[in-house]
């Protein structure tokens, strides 16, 4: 159980996984050794989570091999993976809020006494011992409800130790932790490593990788790029490997002349989500809000649209202040929001296409409180045509459409209101390449017509290809703002991972 052990505890070779048309993992490779912390890095959508879920037994790879101690293994479900000694600590752990900490650790494997009764005293004692081993203080008797994310992770780690897990996978465990908690977690990871466990540490934060890991694997576009010992690496070399890809020629950006200021947000703050965020969007301009998942981009968009209230700061549309927490005021002021999750938030999936398109424009299809089907249909047909929506019948439920056409339907819904500001959150996620280009063309045309567009995107090529200006958020704060000419993938990635610009 020491570092000298040359054979990997677990290895994944050439794993592939597709979800429908989306190729999530094209070539996933990883080898984990006992007594070693292995860093896994890559941009959003590089395939890290899919790889983790294959190890967890949540997904089964379409092809490729999983080797456990050199023997081929297949995990059909989470339980088999657990039985094989693999424990996954997710970013947001799933505990039972109504059970105590000790019960959560031992759920299903409680120590028993006579007549198969649970030995509560032993359970609590063993939980305390585990926490002692981990060097933390947590009351085994308290309910899990209300535990901080960091403490919930601890409970999951303690759980992993009771099942004698040899491989511990942590999927972005630090994303929701404070500096103190991160340090505590690092000490625990060090303890696990010293015990001879293999740890896979997935993180966006490169400084953490360099502090903690002995070996690093970089993934990009679902593929394994390389695996190297940390000694051979520098931060710039890792970033280059993460982003270095061909720029797609998919972005038909039209040159525009930015006009008057449409959106001005000033020192906007919502406790715990984002702090002191200021920027403007002018008419005819596409401004990208870049950053990593969890940097607060979507939260800022939700606040502007009035879904969540803000605690401090102001939002102005053409010089008029918006009241906090009022989507109807935001709509009246001319804001449209194309949300990230179109199925849950952008569309009423069981409604017809025409009804969805007209949903935000009921005033124009309504006479005296009654909605007129004819007006609704004419309205919908007009916009479906303009956006080149591909559909069988407008009366079909919207779930019959492909992802790209669903997204166009959401766009049509808002364009029908002739918005001054359109906020699009991950506008091309899960959309095939052809439709992607169409959505890009559409956004570009809108801007050319004088609409102000605020685009949230995790895809750097999209950000670089589409945006006139780029605002980068890191942990809820504006890290940097780039003009189109000054931006490159390297610089944005640095800002998004919180690396301060010194001698770049």
């Amino acid at each position: 159980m020491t570092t000298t052990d040359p054979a990997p505890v677990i290895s994944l070779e050439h794993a592939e996984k597709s979800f429908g048309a989306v190729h999530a993992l094209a070539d996933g490779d990883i080898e984990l050794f006992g007594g070693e912390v292995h860093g896994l890095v890559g941009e959003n959508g590089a395939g890290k989570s899919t790889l983790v879920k294959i190890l967890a037994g949540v997904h089964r790879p379409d092809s490729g091999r999983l080797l456990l101690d050199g023997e081929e293994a297949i995990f059909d479900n989470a339980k088999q993976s657990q039985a094989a000694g693999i424990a996954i600590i997710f970013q947001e752990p799933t505990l039972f809020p109504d059970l105590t900490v000790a019960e959560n650790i031992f759920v299903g494997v409680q120590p028993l006494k006579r007549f198969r009764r649970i030995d509560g005293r032993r359970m609590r004692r063993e939980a305390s011992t585990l926490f002692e081993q981990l060097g933390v203080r947590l009351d085994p008797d308290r309910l899990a409800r209300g535990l901080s994310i960091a403490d919930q992770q601890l409970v999951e780690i303690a759980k992993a130790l009771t099942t004698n897990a040899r491989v511990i996978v942590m999927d972005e465990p630090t994303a929701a932790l404070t500096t103190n908690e991160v340090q505590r977690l690092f000490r625990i990871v060090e303890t696990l490593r010293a015990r001879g466990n293999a740890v896979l540490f997935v993180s966006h934060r490169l400084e953490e990788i360099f502090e903690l890991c002995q070996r690093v694997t970089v993934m990009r576009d679902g593929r394994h790029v390389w695996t190297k010992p940390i000694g051979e690496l520098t931060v710039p070399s890792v970033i280059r490997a993460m982003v270095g890809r061909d720029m797609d020629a998919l972005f038909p950006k039209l040159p525009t002349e930015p006009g008057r200021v449409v959106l001005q947000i000033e020192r906007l703050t919502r406790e715990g989500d984002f702090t002191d965020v200021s920027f403007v969007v002018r008419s005819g301009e596409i401004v990208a809000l870049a950053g990593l998942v969890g940097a607060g981009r979507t939260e800022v968009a939700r606040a502007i649209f009035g879904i969540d209230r803000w605690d401090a700061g102001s939002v102005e549309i053409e010089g008029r202040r918006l009241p906090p927490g009022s989507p109807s005021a935001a709509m009246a002021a001319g804001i449209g929001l194309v949300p990230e999750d179109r199925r849950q938030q952008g569309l009423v999936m069981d409604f017809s296409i025409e009804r969805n398109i007209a949903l935000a424009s009921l005033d124009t299809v309504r006479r005296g409180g009654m909605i007129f089907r004819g007006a609704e249909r004419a309205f919908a047909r007009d916009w479906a045509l303009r956006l080149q929506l591909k559909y069988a019948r407008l009366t079909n439920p919207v779930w019959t459409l492909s992802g790209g056409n669903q997204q166009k339907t959401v766009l049509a819904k808002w364009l029908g209101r002739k918005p001054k500001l359109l906020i699009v959150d991950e506008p091309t996620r899960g959309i095939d390449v052809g439709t992607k280009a169409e959505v890009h063309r559409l956004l570009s045309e809108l801007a050319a017509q004088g609409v102000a567009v605020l685009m949230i995107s995790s895809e750097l090529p999209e950000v670089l290809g589409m945006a006139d200006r780029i605002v980068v958020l890191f942990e809820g704060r504006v890290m940097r703002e780039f003009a189109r000419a000054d931006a490159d993938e390297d610089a944005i990635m640095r800002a998004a991972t919180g690396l301060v610009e010194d001698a770049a």
Partner: protein
Amino acid sequence: MTSLAEEPAVVDRRSSSHAFAEFLARFRELGIVLALVIVVGAATLDNHLFLSAANIQQILAGSAIIALLAIGETIVIITRNVDLSIGSILGISAYATGVLYVHHPNVALPVVFLLAFAIGAVCGAMNGLIVTVARVPSLVVTLGTLYIIRGIDGAWAGGNQVNASMLPDSFNKIGYATVLGIPYLGWIAIIAVALATYAMRSFRTARDFYAIGSDPAAARLAGIPVGSRVFLAFVLSGAIAGVTGALWLSLYASVDAIAGVGYEFQVIAAVVVGGVAIFGGSGTVLGAALGALLLYTINTALVVVNVSSFWSMALSGALLLAAIAFDRLIALRLAPAMRTRRTARG
């Protein structure tokens, strides 16, 4: 993004509000006992006969029926389900018991209860199967079986009635006899509640019920056989309702097609008043049983002080709402502290 200095304050706030919630959760059972004392006291002031042995025995025996049903309902509700069919199960089991005695007056007592148990368990298994295999929400399934079982009961019984004279005294005795001043039924309920309370704390299967109700998805991830546990919960609830049906007949000594109509709502009200979370995951059998005792006592007290039974219904309803408001209040009080805690690191 969170300064280090802020940390201790947040931790304190969380742990104190947590302690507060825990105190209230404990206060819940104490609170019911307190309410019980107030009700009994007020009713006795109005009419000293309220504390007579006969009346106390009547209350204990009557509430024992509700308390027994509440044991099964608590188990089901803890798994984030609900069983509306218990009143109908009680009814058909009570009628079956009566008919058994009509045809076989000398049948042994254990056989009677075995039959009642079996009828209940079969009905419960039907509920459990539909809920877990067809994945239909239990609210709808048991609403369906409520009517189906009641319908079968009605078709079978027609206008017939089984009354005390057709039942042997050894059976009727269960309903009226007492030990140490407490009716048999009261003892049965006390012992059953004590056993169930202990079991719900001490067995893996029981803790699985809590885990399932607390977070069904996480329960699946943790390898808990969610389907078979939920099935078991319904079988238990049904079997308890079946046995309680036989006990019900011993208490009221006559049964027709409408025995136990509407009991499900009295029981659910008792369970919720007793502090069992309607969305599962928490609560105790003891709390639910105390809730049953409180509601039954209030109803009796209102009759004693000559308040119309309509008002007693309204009061039960108000108490139910108060109990839910109370839970909601605790949750709301905890929420802001928890949000700060959770998002402070976002």
